[in-house]
């Protein structure tokens, strides 16, 4: 089988598309591109697609990664060209590569958060030993400590940059961090925020792309 890794961006026009809807949309794009897609076995065959990390509804991103499987090899440029021709506005493939997947190594993500109001400082917030938030689970509301999943938060002039745990082992969304900031930083009210995923990294903080 021929595995390829697509890096793509999702901009304003597709930021409200949920992950499940995006998966279906991508399958249809592969059909329109007439790529020799490998299908899953079974009763209801669907194209073999592997997404590195779901993107939350309302977020934009420039570092999404998707693994596809084709039944015959194709030049990388052709895969990119044919897909970009049929994708809706707001999704664009920016790179295609082949070879061994680094998707499983994914451990951190860098998010850009643009809030209506920025906190003056997050030093005190980050110096806490634990940052407890309430999380709704199937069995009720549970307290969780998110501090271990925050690697860094930088407050810049017009935005915040957050490096947070990401992937299947641990995953923290920046909106959860914002909620915690609203709760724990005295007098802070973020207002509406915009979230953008900028980069993803492995455990050693080396960028995956």
């Amino acid at each position, binding site marked *: 089988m021929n595995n390829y890794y697509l890096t793509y961006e999702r901009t304003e*026009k*597709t930021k*409200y*598309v*949920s992950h499940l*809807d*995006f998966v*279906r*949309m991508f*399958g*249809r*794009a*592969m*059909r*329109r591109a007439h790529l020799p897609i490998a*299908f899953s076995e079974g*009763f*209801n*065959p*669907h194209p073999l697609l592997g997404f590195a990390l779901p993107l939350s*509804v*309302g977020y934009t991103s420039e570092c999404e990664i998707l693994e596809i499987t084709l039944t015959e090899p194709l030049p990388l440029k052709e895969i990119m060209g044919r897909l970009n021709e*049929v994708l*809706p*506005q*707001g999704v664009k493939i920016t790179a295609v590569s082949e070879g061994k997947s680094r998707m499983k190594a994914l451990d951190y993500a860098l998010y850009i958060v643009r809030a209506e109001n920025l906190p003056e400082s997050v030093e005190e917030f980050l110096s806490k030993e634990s940052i407890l938030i309430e999380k709704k689970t199937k069995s009720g509301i549970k307290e969780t400590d998110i501090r271990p999943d925050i690697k860094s938060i930088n407050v810049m002039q017009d935005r915040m940059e957050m490096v947070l745990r990401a992937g299947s082992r641990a995953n923290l969304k920046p909106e959860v961090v914002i909620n915690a900031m609203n709760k724990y930083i005295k007098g802070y009210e973020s207002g*509406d925020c915009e979230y953008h995923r900028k980069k993803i990294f492995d455990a050693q903080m080396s960028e995956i792309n």
Partner: protein
Amino acid sequence: MSIKNLDKVLKRVQKATRYSGGELNSVIKNPEDVKIRYAFAFPDTYEVGMSHLGMKILYHILNLRPDTYCERTFAPWIDMEEEMRKEGIPLFTNETHTPVKEFDFLGITLQYEMCYSNVLNMLSLAGIPLLSSERGEDDPFVNGGGPCSYNSEPLADFFDFFTMGEGEEVIGELMDAYIEWKESGGKRIDYLKRIAKIEGIYVPSLYDVTYNGDGTIKSMTPNCPEAKPKIKKRIIEDLDKVIYPDKLIVPFCDIVHDRANIEVFRGCIRGCRFCQAGMIYRPVREKSPDTLLNDACNLINSTGYEEMGLSSLSTSDYTELETLTDKLLNLTEKEKVSLSLPSLRVDNFSLDLMQRVQKVRKSGLTFAPEAGSQRMRDVINKNVSEEDLVNSATLAFEGGWNSVKLYFMIGLPYEEMEDIAGIARLAEKVVECYYNSEKTNKRRAVNVTLSVASFVPKPFTPFQWAPQDTMETLAEKQLFLKGEVRNRHIKYNYHQNDISVLEGVFARGDRKLGKVLLRAHSLGCKLDGWNECFNLELWKQAFSDCGIDMAFYTRERSYDEILPWDIVDIGVSTQFMKNENEKAKKAATTPNCREKCSGCGAAALCKTKKGCVCFE
């Protein structure tokens, strides 16, 4: 142009892609480059509206014109409406997020009566005066179309005009007339008078209605020379020549019918006496298999859909169904697309076809005997026998299915309790088919689901004069049937009967109902097709506040009464409807159009004769 705070609101609502636009194949034009901006509204949620084929056809046809930009808008879900009202966001289009009020036209398709409250709610959200008489020179023209426009009288106060018949035939003329009118510098009323002369256009404000003392109509007459005394529906004569979209918008979110549909034919040969669609879409006109294959090919390529559907009122009646499915399956199997067939008839069910078509997915099978006893099936002219159903069910069970759904109606004209008990007896016979056959797998249990709707008499059917059962009678009948269903393999589903009665009131309503709609809207009625929103008490209050009795509209009519829809000519004669109603009383059947022409009059609509059942 773009709406302030929209992004903020979209972040807070569920399934924002219903409002945000940007779907594949949605049309992007520069509004500056066109002379006409047309907002096409479906007065229900996005998921329902985007499943509607007619909207896709008209959207495509309007956008083929370089001088016109057609955009879509839908009824927002409750959470979105709340946010819009809070933030002062008016109803806007999905494509460019332009307020609907800024458009030249607001076209609203009327597919079922229970969307009327949404029509008013959408006008109110748009900031367009609800009453046509209160609209100013800058307001859009509000245009209605679709099956409910054939009796549009309950909506007459809210619409500037209605289109009778197949929209793609007349919409171009309306647009041309608009450009001419605009260039001539005329007033709003001048455009309405101009288009009143076009065949198929009904401008309700150009007609005066008077009433008798008992509330029935005394007269309905044009009040200006431009208005036609009778509005004739428009139809496409040759379906092979009509433009069919080569692209369909592919929504991001899941919708009701999420697949590529090709339209096989229009009309229906059957002539079931309760069915409005079977009368208003006459005569039957088919597309050729080659045209359909071409449509299918275009859509598969342009949408990437994994499922293709055949659309018509009764697909198994297509004359070249085998040729068509053979050709289609060659295409779909290669592209790994599954083909789905809707509405099967009991009498010409082909197992071979079903198995080929459902190779990938074995979904449930549905049959529609509609009535429980043979007498009742003859009354409604369904023309299927118990034997047909037994044979089809046996074939299906032997083909590996173990679950079937049966559609029925109660509250039909001339119905007796034993006809209703017949529904349970028929279902029991279907269960027996499973256990009597040697070829079925007895280790699996058989499931028969009864889906029973309440009959609603509709205009332009032989039952248009019939009385409608009251809510109480319908409830009694449902309870009776529940008691009759005693087999553990049979599941009985029934629908709310109160909504059917309301549907019946508006289906055969007149202009006096306009004030009830206004009142219901001000009381907060909306999204009545949704159980979680429908509120009968509010509707009852609206009727009583206006001093209008629902029973006036559900009563039986005599043949001499002037009916609110008599002003429209669908091409099928009233005499034919009367004959059919008289035959129903005697439980006498009428052969289908292909067996023998019954002279309904629709043949005169189709001068080109090609592909039309009247000239086979």
